């Protein structure tokens, strides 16, 4: 319904603006509803993302770096999540393009979510691993069959990348 879409969009937009600021430690962003000439944005509009990392000018988002694009997308996904939290959330290697500084900001935000939400995070990243209350290692010795084992932090450090 038109009204529901509008309310949802506005709520997510506010969360997105805040999330972007926190993940980038500054800068500004926005979500814009745009429809071609003559059509109703609330019914047929597409969602434009405006993003301006700190210290930079507002430009077409495609000009952003790989890591900046990923962090912007994460801000949007987290904004949707804030609007309609789920009791369980599983993230598969979403930290992959982020450098260490951005991973730490991502972790800070995630720690606030996990008070109300149960998280499962798949990662190759040592820093992300530090979020673990419990740690599983998955292995596949030659046979093409997966095996799941509970591991301690020191054991897991062997299984996570150095590089």
């Amino acid at each position, binding site marked *: 319904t038109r009204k529901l879409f509008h309310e949802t969009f506005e709520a997510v937009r506010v969360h997105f603006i805040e999330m972007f600021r926190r993940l980038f430690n500054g800068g500004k962003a926005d979500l814009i509803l745009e429809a071609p000439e003559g059509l109703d944005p609330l019914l047929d509009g597409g969602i434009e993302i405006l993003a301006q990392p700190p210290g930079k000018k507002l430009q077409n988002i495609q000009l952003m770096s790989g890591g900046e694009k*990923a962090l912007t997308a*994460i801000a949007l996904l987290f904004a949707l999540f804030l609007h309609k939290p789920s009791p369980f959330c599983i993230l598969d290697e979403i930290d992959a393009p982020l450098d260490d500084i951005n991973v730490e900001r991502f972790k800070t935000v995630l720690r606030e979510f996990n008070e109300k939400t149960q998280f499962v995070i798949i990662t190759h990243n040592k820093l992300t*691993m530090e979020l*673990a209350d419990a740690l599983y290692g998955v292995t*596949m010795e030659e046979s093409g069959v997966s095996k799941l084992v509970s591991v301690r932090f020191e054991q897991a450090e062997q299984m996570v990348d150095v590089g």
Partner: protein
Amino acid sequence: MFFKRIEMVGFKSFATRTVCDFIPGTTVVVGPNGCGKSNILDAIKWVVGEQTASQLRGKKMQDVIFSGSASFKPLGVAQVTLTIDNSTRILPSDYEEIQITRRLFRSGESEYLLNKTPCRLRDIHNLFLGTGIGKSSYSMLEQGRVGQIIGAKPIERRFLIEEAA
């Protein structure tokens, strides 16, 4: 805590019966390329009712059944059981604990169980309505999803808002 544990047998690379216990906090899963981490996410999506094979990286749904390896023969059925803590009544059911089982045979025949009682897929979908689970748009972020969002056309992103509405 919401999900208590997931049990997989014959599901993708989890040929032998595997139990993954969840905890109230944050569980981290690590391991080398190709060892089966994303397959766990697929198992969760599947048992809560994913019906699109390509969302599980398959061409047809039977692709989730363990298809054999160098040292193991293929299996004829995939089964995943999810045990849920419903003490806070997040789900519309009087049970303290809810168990969902999904089974798929090579023939294409499916079975669904709710607390060991046969049910239809629709019953599983209804159980999760409004929780953000099942509709996987942002509570289950598969590998590559983040990259998709920036590259998507504005009109494709509309779906994200509609899902959250």
